[in-house]
């Protein structure tokens, strides 16, 4: 077997193994779907009235792309916690003692987590449609919108893979990732328009890749308003390109680093 084919076949085996767990532990699927529903309802009805909107948009339309982004970025943190759990239970040792591809465990993990994210985003989109969110663009654009969201989350998964292999305790991985993910997703255009930020934070928010992800989604779903122009920052004027640059950068850095961490991972 060529090494490419071997990596692919090992990755399929590992992905399957991870998806079996999703099937056996229904809590995973329940939380992957319930929390986005909760987010949508909470922001729509609790904070919705309190937030000053760009003129000409409904909060439902403004909000949903932001919630999509936050939820799937949070969703990709499970990659780190799951790998830390495998490490603790000795499974990574088992895999490392097998003549299998050195990257398959990580590929299988991130792909399975992307699968969970697809379920989350589907549920959120359906809930969104119920509370007034609409896609006002072509099918092609809408699909591209979802792809951009999922690609960014997939890249974050690889970053979290490295964190999980180095930190080695699932609970600590979760706490550590919240410390990074919350500022990233809140100091952004996720829930409020950027005009509401003070100047320094505003610059950070404009160049925050999460803002670009959200802006891409709003543009591609047709959730923008001509009365509320996009900020002038290049990152937000070219959000899809800027997001893809981040995706490539994150993968270029963290795929090799995570594989290296895996090769050296010590169980206990």
């Amino acid at each position, binding site marked *: *077997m060529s090494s490419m084919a*071997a990596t692919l*076949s*090992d990755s399929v*085996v590992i992905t*399957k*193994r991870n998806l*079996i*767990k999703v099937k*056996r*532990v229904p809590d995973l699927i329940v939380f992957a779907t319930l929390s986005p529903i909760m987010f949508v309802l909470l922001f729509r009805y609790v904070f919705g009235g309190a937030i000053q909107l760009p003129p000409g948009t409904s909060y439902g339309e403004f909000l949903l792309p932001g919630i999509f982004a936050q939820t799937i970025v949070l969703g990709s943190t499970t990659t780190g916690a799951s790998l830390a759990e495998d490490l603790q*239970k*000795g*499974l990574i*040792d*088992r*895999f*490392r*003692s*097998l*003549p*299998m591809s050195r990257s398959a465990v990580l590929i299988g993990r991130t792909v399975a987590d992307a699968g969970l994210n697809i379920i989350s985003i589907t549920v959120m989109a359906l809930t969104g449609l119920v509370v007034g969110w609409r896609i006002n663009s072509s099918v092609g654009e809408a699909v591209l919108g979802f792809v951009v969201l999922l690609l960014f989350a997939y890249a974050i998964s690889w970053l979290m893979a490295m964190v999980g292999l180095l930190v080695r305790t699932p609970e600590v991985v979760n706490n550590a990732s919240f410390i990074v993910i919350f500022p990233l997703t809140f100091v952004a255009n996720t829930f409020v328009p950027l005009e509401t930020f003070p100047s320094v934070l505003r610059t950070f928010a404009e160049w925050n890749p999460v803002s670009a992800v959200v802006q891409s989604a709003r543009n591609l779903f047709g959730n923008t308003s001509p009365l509320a122009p996009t900020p002038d920052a290049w990152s937000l004027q070219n959000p899809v390109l800027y997001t893809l640059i981040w995706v490539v950068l994150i993968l270029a850095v963290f795929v090799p680093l995570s594989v290296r961490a895996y090769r050296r991972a*010590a*169980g*206990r």
Partner: protein
Amino acid sequence: MYATEKSGGELSGGGPSVGGMTDAIVVEGLVKRFGATTALDGVDLTVAEGSVLGLLGPNGAGKTTVVRILTTLLEADAGRVEVVGLDVSREADRVRAAIGLTGQYAAVDEYLTGFENLEMVGRLYRLGRAEARRRAGELLERFDLSGAADRPAKTYSGGMRRRLDIAASLIARPRVLFLDEPTTGLDPRSRLSMWEFIADLADGGTTILLTTQYLEEADRLADRMVVIDRGRVIARGTADELKAQVGGQRLEFTVTDAAVLPGMVERLRPLAVEDPVVDVQARRLSLPVSGGAEVLAEALRRLDGATAEIFDVGLRRPDLDDVFLALTGRVAEEVATEDDPTAEPAITGGAR
């Protein structure tokens, strides 16, 4: 070397050995440091193809570190390590294809069933799908897990998980199997059945390196033993050779009245190969002998009815606890908790 599956053994797999190689494992001058801790301080050992080596030592001696290096999980700081003639760091992937590892803690996926666990590992050893499934079924049968094959491993007892873990490491018929404390934490019954499984594998020709803290376990399963303490080999040899280091067997009598002891010594002295030892306080007589059960019968005959005061009698062979005590001046269990660096072993450098 070659056994049939029918006899309960695993085929040793690799075919005839190449270039007259007879050692499946060769370790020379192995050193491993973790920061300031020197976990392994120049370990040498070899394991002949088809034999079982018991790597013996108290907690923290370095057993797991040896296993992790030999199974490619850890890089050594110095030394030469070859498994089935392959260098473990330069040809790691080929080594991995030839070995099976059962670590100190059962590494099974709790959410997969027993069957799914084995099938997955089989696939990752690059067996075809049909072959992986066939082997999974076979091994579940062999390790008495057929009834639980379709239950998630989460529901398994400790003993069942260990068996599943060993089954997983056997799925590709490895030439060399590493077992790191395979019975630690098992109840006595599971331990006994685990011993039977391991003895079966050894009979089938699989080369096995087994670590244990239980001296009885090594005595029972291993052809040869290497005793390590604080990262150094302190003794090696067969169980009998190690026992010879602490002396032979003894006949021990415990009586209800110490007054009868001098008379007994008189009658039994001809059987002793060395001076008898009398412990009046414990009302005990210990008689170094050679010859086994006949000596016991002969002793009772010589006492000729004067046995009313005898409370207990037995032929005691030194066990490996005695060996450890003689080698290190410490009892095996004590070593784990003791951290006095000045207590150097009484005998070092080991091989006789």
